């Protein structure tokens, strides 16, 4: 019974999926707006469920294949906030869709279920199934406007790259299973005594080294997870899909899906970091991927003229910073990576909320159409400015704090990762350039958008809250820091059993 109680948020999420699906069947066409309210309410209830005692206490379930610890709880709350904000900002957008309102929220909540599971998985079998639940939901969501050439193309590109990455991940898991004889994560953390042939004692030095099959397996797994987090080399879908997919889906994809991929990376890395040879084999690989991701994202963003495409490249760049913290593979790196991702949820969703509302008035995503936005609509202009500056890492906003400490955690690793610190710093400057180009347009005198987009009160409150959160988080980061640091420190406490 206790096992089932630990799954309360997941059970709640599945119930929400079914509730929205059934409500969609029963509600007459003119009252489909209720579905939006239902989905928003569901995300709030799910957030509350993560605070219920049996869940909040944490622990193992189902023979150790499901794990609730500090990191899992923090990530689940972040997923709830993401879903809440996405549903909140997509209400009008979805209401204007010719069909499939119910499906939009059903799939959105199904993806949320997958993300919940991603935060808690503790064996490769659940990892694969949870990840595919998120991915397949997003295939449909990206191609949601099936009469639009761009949306279908986005869905197809997400599908092909997503399936390739899933196959690579699966093949990697097969080899890890082949090397260790089990699909549980715990075995990776063991000292090698439970390994059949995963770790081999090097005769000369007496130290443990990784067998080639385990190395290949881990390499393929991290490559496959890189698809979700938009890391090089499986990042190629990001700009195209971000541009082509419906904007609320892009917002959800850019935050939720990415966070799910990072949740799995954190979990694996947290297990792996307890086995020194495994961690040592992964660090150079992750550092290289981080550097390539940073450069690709930030250099690719410079010539863009479409704001969604620009944010696609920007999101690749942001992923590079988190990978930088992951490559540092220390508790400090993990804590700040979590901090950065939590800040990224609020920042990116603030930016996307503005984009959805501007596009409702202008019907376009050209950056030129943002000229003079601050004059035609001060709130939207300010929110977009604050969001972009926070993404760029300008004081006093929260993005700066995260970037500073992520680069700092790599710095603390000493000379081996010193080059990565310089790469990180160089990219801050590059990123500043393209973000400021947009900000400059927003505050230009001649407004190109004569029509001021009408913003409902609900969105005004949400945008104002976003601006305040970004500023307060930047001035007083210790509140969020305390939460993420304890989550990172607590991550290993209950998750240590090797099976």
């Amino acid at each position, binding site marked *: 019974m206790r096992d089932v109680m630990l799954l309360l948020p997941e059970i709640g999420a599945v119930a929400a999926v079914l509730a929205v699906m059934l409500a969609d069947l029963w509600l007459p066409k003119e009252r489909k707006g209720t579905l939006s309210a239902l989905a928003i309410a569901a995300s709030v209830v799910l957030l509350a469920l993560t605070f219920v005692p049996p869940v909040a206490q944490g622990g193992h379930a189902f023979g150790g294949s499901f794990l609730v610890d500090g990191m899992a709880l923090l990530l689940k709350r972040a997923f709830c906030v993401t879903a809440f904000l996405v549903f909140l900002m997509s209400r009008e957008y979805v209401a204007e869709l010719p069909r499939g309102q119910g499906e939009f929220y059903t799939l959105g909540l199904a993806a949320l279920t997958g993300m919940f599971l991603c935060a808690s998985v503790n064996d*490769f*079998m659940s990892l*694969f*199934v949870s990840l*595919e639940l998120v991915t*397949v939901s997003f*295939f*449909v969501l990206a*191609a949601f406007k*099936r*009469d*639009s*050439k*761009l949306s*279908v*193309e*986005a*869905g*197809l*590109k997400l*599908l*092909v790259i997503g*399936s*390739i990455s*899933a*196959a690579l991940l*699966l*093949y990697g*898991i*097969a*080899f890890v*299973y*082949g090397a260790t*004889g*089990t*699909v549980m994560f715990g075995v990776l953390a063991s000292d090698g005594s439970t390994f*059949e042939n995963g770790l081999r004692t090097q005769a000369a030095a007496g130290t443990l080294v990784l067998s080639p099959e385990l190395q290949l397996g881990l390499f393929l797994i991290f490559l496959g997870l890189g698809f979700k987090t938009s890391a090089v080399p499986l990042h190629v879908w990001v*700009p*195209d*899909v971000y*541009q*082509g997919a419906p904007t609320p889906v892009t917002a959800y994809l850019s935050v939720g899906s990415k966070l799910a991929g990072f949740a799995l990376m954190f979990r694996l890395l947290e297990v792996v970091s307890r086995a020194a040879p495994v961690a040592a084999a992964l660090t150079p690989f992750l550092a290289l991927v981080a550097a390539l991701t940073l450069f690709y994202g930030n250099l690719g963003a410079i*010539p*863009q003229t*479409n704001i969604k*495409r620009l944010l696609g490249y920007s999101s690749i760049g942001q992923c590079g910073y988190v990978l930088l913290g992951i490559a540092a593979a220390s508790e400090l790196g993990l804590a700040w990576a979590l901090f950065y991702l939590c800040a990224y949820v609020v920042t990116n969703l603030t930016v996307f909320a503005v984009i959805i509302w501007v596009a409702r008035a202008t019907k376009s995503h050209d950056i030129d159409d943002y000229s003079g936005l601050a004059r035609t609509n001060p709130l939207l202009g300010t929110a977009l400015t604050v969001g972009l500056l926070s993404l760029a890492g300008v004081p006093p906003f929260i993005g700066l704090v995260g970037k500073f400490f992520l680069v700092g955690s790599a710095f603390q690793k000493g000379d081996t990762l010193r080059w990565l610190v310089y790469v990180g710093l160089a990219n801050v400057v590059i990123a500043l350039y393209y973000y400021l180009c947009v900000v400059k347009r927003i505050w230009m005198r001649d407004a190109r958008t004569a029509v001021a987009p009408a913003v409902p009160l609900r969105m005004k409150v949400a945008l104002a809250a976003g601006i305040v959160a970004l500023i307060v988080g930047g001035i007083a980061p210790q509140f969020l820091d305390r939460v993420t640091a304890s989550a990172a420190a607590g991550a290993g406490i209950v998750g240590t059993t090797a099976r």
Partner: protein
Amino acid sequence: MDRVFGEITTSHYVVLSALIFAVGLCGVVTRRNAVVILMSLELMLNGANLAFVAFSRHHANLQGQVFVFFVIAVAAAEAAVALAIIIALNRVKGGVSIDDATELRG
């Protein structure tokens, strides 16, 4: 047969799975028809499945075989969504070639 080829070991199965996986990967990368790409993706997944079953026999535990059932179920869901997207592509573009889907670039 045994006298000619010797015993078939786990390695043989793993090499075969790697070959199937590689054939699938080549198909995904080089083919232009979306349906053929989908078939190649299934080939990649089945290459991994074969490796799972081979390792499962090697370790004499059933985790690998159970994993394969999950993979088959997930692959079926993925194929259903993939075919729906390909049909949508055919509707808006009048073809199922990947070359029809090149409007998003830059």
